[in-house]
């Protein structure tokens, strides 16, 4: 088995169709108003049950969660595998960090189980929606410290945002399973981010350059995981930024503010890109 595993080789059965960020961003349609002149902000796109397409949007997001959990499971498993136990220098990671990654693999396996059951409950078929492999691709760097930043801070942080949104959706809709399950998964994800925050600090204790590089990488990934502003403080973003749970997981207010700014930039950049593409297409 190779030491590192390329995203293109992630194994799936024939029901799943994979896509990536480049293809997603080449789609020149937009769910939000992109007109520059629009003075007021666009209508709310927040994923709440009062949206006319609430169930369909929730199904699509739940499927996204399920494939995201598969990738998180694969990522955690790979980290347990890819790096030898050592003192944390070079390509090695502490033995205890490998153990944490194995634990995370189990947690993510349960999350796949939970989201597959929830998908079924919501009427979704496995593979019904395309799978964006950006989570694995962006988060699974070959440098263990960057991987911690990408997976356990950026990806798991996104999971906190998404689960908080879905939990609220279940609560408002009165769905007895959705809220229950999301709350459990949220508890695990907060643990995973905490793991990442603690290990990042520990492993880079005597290497400020390495730490700075990791945090820089995390920002790049965070912006990517905003999915063109699909996640953000703005009501135009379907998924909000879960400030309270992020704080519980060890994000500082400054860090969350930075993510909020990047989400905002990503949304505006996406709108501008769509506007240009639509103008060019004459629609």
């Amino acid at each position: 088995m190779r030491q590192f595993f390329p995203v293109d080789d992630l194994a799936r059965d024939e029901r799943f169709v994979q896509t990536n960020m480049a293809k997603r961003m080449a789609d020149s349609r937009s769910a939000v108003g992109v007109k520059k002149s629009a003075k007021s902000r666009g209508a709310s796109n927040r994923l709440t049950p009062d949206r006319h397409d609430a169930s369909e949007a929730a199904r699509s997001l739940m499927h996204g969660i399920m494939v995201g959990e598969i990738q998180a499971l694969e990522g955690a498993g790979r980290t347990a595998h890819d790096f030898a136990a050592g003192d944390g220098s070079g390509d090695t990671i502490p033995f205890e960090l490998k153990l944490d990654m194995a634990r995370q693999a189990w947690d993510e396996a349960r999350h796949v189980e939970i989201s597959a059951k929830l998908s079924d409950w919501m009427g979704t078929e496995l593979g019904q929606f395309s799978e964006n492999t950006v989570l694995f691709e962006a988060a699974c760097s070959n440098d263990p410290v960057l991987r911690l930043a990408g997976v356990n801070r950026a990806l798991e942080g996104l999971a906190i945002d998404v689960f908080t949104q879905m939990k609220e959706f279940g609560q408002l809709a009165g769905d007895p399973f959705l809220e229950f399950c999301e709350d459990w998964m949220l508890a695990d994800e907060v643990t995973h981010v905490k793991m990442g925050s603690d290990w990042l600090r520990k492993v880079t204790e005597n290497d400020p350059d390495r730490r700075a590089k990791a945090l820089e990488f995390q920002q790049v990934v965070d912006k990517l995981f905003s999915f063109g502003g699909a996640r953000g403080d703005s009501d135009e973003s379907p998924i909000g930024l879960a400030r309270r749970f992020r704080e519980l997981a060890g994000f500082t207010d400054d860090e969350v503010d930075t993510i909020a700014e990047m989400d905002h930039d990503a949304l505006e950049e996406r709108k501008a890109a769509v506007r240009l593409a639509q103008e060019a297409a004459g629609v």
Partner: protein
Amino acid sequence: MSTDADTASTARAPFAPWDRRDLPGAFDVAETARRVGNYKWTEMKLFEALGGWVATVPELDVKMRLGTHCYHHAWHAELWHKRLPELREMKPERLTVPANDAMARFITAMTEPEGPELTIEKLVGVYRVLIPRFVAAYTYHMNNTSEITDAPTIRTLKFALQDEFDDWRDGELMLQSLITTPDQVRRASEHQSALEAIMVEAGGITGPGSIGGAE
């Protein structure tokens, strides 16, 4: 006022009539540490392999099982890691080694299959060759070590064995559901034979004597 209870003796034998544990054991501290080091190394290689394979298997149920089992073996490795200093090994890494070269070669051979079409080979290596060897070595150790001086090792062996049995059963179920044609039967048995041969050369998880001698 004095009662019968005040005057009744509380002196009892140190071992109750139902407690018939024995003092002698087959392993001294150094031998126990050596075996525990081999256990830790092999459990570690196993959880690394399972974690690595998660991304390589297309069958969703197998993917999730491997992720779950990955943690079981990581936990065993952790328990053995913590046992080593209690056995006077202050540098656990020193004893975190394979029993011999053949054992190292076994792990290399077991972890070689990577392609998405090789799920049977991956599972055969783990569930039909390696885990049965864990069950054997752990059982032998549990039944032969001192029940009194080495109680902590026995406790860990029991926890680990419970997982090994459960995972073995899971693995066997997955394999029986995947092996449905004569060609798949051939693949499974050929791979098992090849790995088994290296394992025999290694003598088991802790080398020759993993399950005692053939007296």
